[in-house]
């Protein structure tokens, strides 16, 4: 008896997760812009970090973004049917 209401709740939770996953994917390019533009705030010339360090930073940030994108898109489910209702279900 107690299991009956749990079933729909579980389903809603999974589609809720999917929608938040899409939100996370939407945020990816913004994260990317922030991370990749960050070096512009650093001091220039001989006093600042050398190009070697900047290079290491950029490639680390780059790898991080790729890894993030890989992990997020891998969990993305392919349900076209849901996409149509997406705007309405947005706040769900």
């Amino acid at each position, binding site marked *: 008896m107690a299991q009956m209401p749990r079933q729909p709740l579980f389903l809603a939770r999974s589609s809720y997760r999917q929608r938040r996953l899409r939100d996370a994917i939407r945020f990816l390019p913004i994260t990317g812009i922030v991370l990749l533009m960050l070096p512009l705030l650093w001091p220039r010339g001989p006093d600042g970090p050398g*190009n070697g360090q900047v290079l290491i930073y950029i490639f680390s940030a780059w790898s991080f*973004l790729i890894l993030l994108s890989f992990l997020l*898109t891998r969990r993305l489910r392919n349900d076209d049917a849901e996409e149509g209702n997406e705007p309405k279900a947005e706040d769900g």
Partner: protein
Amino acid sequence: MLTFNLLVAAALAYVAFLFTIAFIAERRASLGKVAWLRGPLIYTLSLSIYCTAWTFYGAVGFAARSGLEYLTIYLGPTLVMLGWWWFLRKLVRIGRSQRITSIADLISSRFGKSTALGVIVTALCVVGVTPYIALQLQSLTLSFAVFADAGGSEWVAGDLNAVALYAAGGLAVFTILFGTRNLDANERHHGIVLAIAVEAVVKLAALMAVGIFVVWGIAGGVEQTLARIEASDIAHWEQSGGRWVGLTFVAAAAFLCLPRMFHVLVVENDNERHLATASWAFPTYVMLMSLFVVPIAVVGLDLLPEGSNPDLFVLTVPLNQGREGLATLSFLGGFSSATSMVIVATIALATMVSNHIVVPIWLRSRGQGAMMSGDVRAVVLTARRLSIIGVLTLGYVYYRLSGGGAALAAIGLISFVGVAQILPVMMGAIFWRGATRVGAAAGLTTGFAIWAWALFLPSFGEGAILSARVLAEGPWGIGWLRPSALFGFDALDPLLQAALWSMLLNTAVFVVGSLLSFPSPLERLQGAQFVNVFEHSAGAQTWAPNSAQAEDLLIVAQRIIGPTEAQAAFQRAARAQGKAGYLPDVTPEFVQTVERMLAGSVGAATAHAMVSQTLEGAAVSVEDLIAVADEAAQILEYSNKLEAKSAEQERTARALRDANQKLTALSIQKDAFLSQISHELRTPMTSIRSFSEILREGGTDVAAQQRYAGIIQDESIRLTRLLDDLLDLTVLENGQVVLNQQEGSLADLLDRAVDTSGLRSGGIKVIRRPADEAIALSTDLDRLGQVFINLVSNAQKYCDAENPELRIVVRQTPQGPVVDFIDNGSGVPEASQEVIFEKFSRLEDHARAGGAGLGLAICREVMLRLGGEIFYLPGQGGAAFRVVLPKSQAMAAQ
């Protein structure tokens, strides 16, 4: 020492290898085995044509000159791929649902299928990309020259030009061979995609190999490499913020707008899901491509003598170290980068030029629009082939004119800024319903003009097109129009200020123009379909119903996408409506389907023009369009759903209505037949009776007796034949017939049919192609022959042309081999096509008909028993019947 000839041999072997790969891919695709060709991996690799020879060789030079700035060229596309959910997903969905063939087609289609916009975008792309193609030719010749120098032979300009010419020629052959193989409804090229995927692997492997050699082979490890960087000329982080942001933006915009990128990203995309994979795989690819650029630059600056060209370090560093194998690999990498870019860019440009410039002009020059005679497919393919040759010639000419100097090296970024001018209109097209054609045209023209003035024309150098005076003081001495400092801003560098002004004014003019102008109904409709592509799963209504003849549409479609595909598509549509045969009802949805089908081959604007000409000015009703495109679209969406639910009932109702119509027509014809059959029976009976009476009374001479007996006999034979036919039909219909399996060949059977009908002796002319008829049959040959004889003698009897001709065409279709009997008479009117196979039907003209209208009914019953099919084939310019040969038997015999 690596000889120069060996290198040429390696390049040729590599090219042969690419041809083989492309050929195998095409072969497999034609057999339907496309799954592995269309995976996400191949898709991601095909995107790598973004990395051209300019980035392969030039990135190192870029790094040697301005430190880490080269990274922006790769960071821009990385951000676009990470943001796939925002733009690319929508772009790909639109591309698929609207059958978009190029970026010009996208813009033209969105703004009311406008021909003018298609021409503007095409012109912009040709002007922007041609120098880029020239740049690839230059890098090819330079890399050859490096080896020639190393081999001890000094090259003169003539040799370089010859290499460029051979390269352009070879690329034209490859592109024409695999890029215009067919006029695919989806504009997809399996061979080319696989070839560029292989080239992508080669160039990545080459650059990584050189990088690994430099870091671990020369510098001695990661730490030592970092130490070398600290000690080099580019040790310090001195990046200008404006250029970092600006170049990243320009690269991102170009990634979306470059015709070749749009082609691989959107047109060749097979599955939206591939974007999800590419969103991490493509950034990985470009990251690896740029990983070793700085080490190679630093080591090159260290090792090579002062003044050597840093753009060629990727080649000269291994050569300097005596690693000829590595240098060759690196050469092939650069070769791959250049060729793959040129091939895809050429296809994309040629598609645009042929669809938006050549074909519309050709159609207009013919004056008759879409209904002219001849095969449009051949014209479109020829136009595309000529466009390919034209684009490559233009690239070569540009290379020769520019002298292959430093002016060309700067063209990469200039080209990027040029095509980026499409970005505002493209974004408006897919996100803003209010964007209009007028605004788009004005914005594009503004951006194009500013770019040309501030960047493109000055790039030819002082005095080439703009005089030194104009460059220094502005035209007519107007200082604020100086190309390098528009509006008096000279704080930014020329590239950045040109990019800034062109993009800003472009966007502003586009927005203001859109706000002030009023869109046409078709624009509003297309706007709704583009912007709300995820909600509008079903297409909206475009055409007033029932204003076109299905047969006319079939004729147009056959000319463009080919008879087999067009007939199959029409048959599918008819079946979906619950009808048999090839002519569906001309519903708005059906017209839209046809238009999209054609758009896949010739572009939206042309397809729209052709269909509207076919509909003979039955223009879109404004109320219809407003109703859909208006903000009330959501209400309509709801009613659409209701409509979808009732579609099933409607299908059934339509089938019932059709059946009812047929029954009514038949019952009328049945009455007519009864009187006809009585008449048919009575006429011979009357003459038999009269003549036998004369004979019985006697008093006639022998000659007359003979003649009367002859008439009696003829009439009895006619009577018998009529009764035989009726009997035959009854037996067939009741399924009591015994089939007599025999082996034989189709050619023999057709020969016999033609002979029996007495066609050899004159009258109608029979045209056949014996080569196609070599098909072995295993079925009841007598019965099948009966069908053929009937069709052939029908043509003889009814064909009313002055010089009657009967074409007997054997085709291979997905349903198996079919035989078409096509004459050049006036054909069967559409109203009668439905009933000619019914057993009591016959066309109006009783006088020339010999039988009682049973022939075709018997044919249909026979084919049914044999397991084949026979039906009337509309739209062939005369009466045409298609016989689908009995499948299993025909297959078994092969």
